[in-house]
């Protein structure tokens, strides 16, 4: 029967069922990843971010919140220009991490 509406998907991040394989793998090769303080410098300076919603900070979070597909979609915007790496106050090798995610 068509009621004209249906169950809407939950907006909750269900941490119990988040698959962290990609993030954990990334963390092994890039231990610095954990020192991110979510300052957003990478996003602010991002060349692609000037035209799109690209944000490395969010990509990192997406990977930790089970939104891997969204992260992979966002990462396609990256131009690998390296500004993010240069501005990161924690010295995270962001460009390398971005490259690793796409592999």
């Amino acid at each position, binding site marked *: 029967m068509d009621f004209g509406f249906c169950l809407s998907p939950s907006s*909750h991040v269900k*941490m119990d069922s988040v698959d962290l394989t990609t993030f954990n793998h990334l963390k092994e090769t890039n231990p610095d990843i954990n*020192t991110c303080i979510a300052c957003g410098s990478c996003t602010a300076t991002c060349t692609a971010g000037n035209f799109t919603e690209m944000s490395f900070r*969010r990509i990192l979070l997406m990977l930790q*919140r089970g939104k891997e597909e969204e992260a992979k979609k966002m990462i396609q915007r990256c131009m690998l220009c390296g500004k993010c790496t240069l501005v990161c106050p924690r010295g995270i090798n962001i460009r390398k991490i971005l490259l690793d995610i796409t592999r």
Partner: protein
Amino acid sequence: MKENILIIGGGAAGMEAATQLQKMGLTPIIVEKSEHLGGHIAQWDRLFPAFHPAKDVVDQMLNQVKDVKTYLNTEVTDIQRNSDGFKAILSNNETIDAKAVILATGFDIFKAERKQEYGYGIYNNVMTSVELENFFRTGNDARINNPKKIGFVHCVGARDVKVCNTYCSKVCCTTALKQACEIKEVFPDAEVYTFYMDLRMFGPGYEDLYLKTQKDFDVKCVRGRVCEVSEDMDGKLVIKAEDTLFGKPLKMTLDVLVLMCSMEKNKSIDVIQQKLGVANNSDGFMQNKDMYLGMNGTAQDGVFVAGACTAPKSLPDTIGEARSVATQVFNYINSK
């Protein structure tokens, strides 16, 4: 020159002030309501940021005050100002004449049950930071049974108008991360989450502690306040919060939830404080003269304050204030 100085409270502030006053040739007298000296810090296992055993510090302080006249299990029941200074009546009916009074009454821990949504005292596995510290000290807590997921909630009873505490409790962030490391040391396979509002940790070595939690212990910091806690069929805790950096609500199951309870003013001194004419500030702590040069003074001549009775303070803050109050009292006595 043997002048009595009454110190109410035998915690870190009281003990350190007594030590210094004694060295200055004055006669400090400590009145402590509990059965031991050392206050809250004596119940603590290790201190941030470098995991130094609290016992070391407390023992040193105890050793320094071993010759100081000390009343344990004793409260000041009445105090009067007279021409000579103060006359205090103790709960054991003794009377003390003192030239000056130092209020070093410290703080109380926020009663976690007041934040009903966290279910402290209702859900088995919700505990306070003090209880967790006790676990580190004794190794005993029935609630901690090889947990796989542990959560820490910051700002419980702090920065929260709903419980009338608008101030930041200063030490909880650092304590939470210290305890997060420690729980990872005990249970290396456990996942530890902290739910913070702002990570307010500043001081020498604090950032190193933060980096340690991130790099060595993989403590996951989520920015957002836990809004409700429930229990599922297995007695595990289901918590909800918003990951504000991600912009989405988040739900997860935890084995143990630790509430980082704030410091509140120690209210057991209210009557004596009133008799001395020392007011409270807007945070409910004692009002000192001013927060810069007059931090140890009060509006009342001869009444001094030191430590966490005026605001939430760390141990180094408290010791610093205790030393400065001794100088203030010494100058006060000399100027008489």
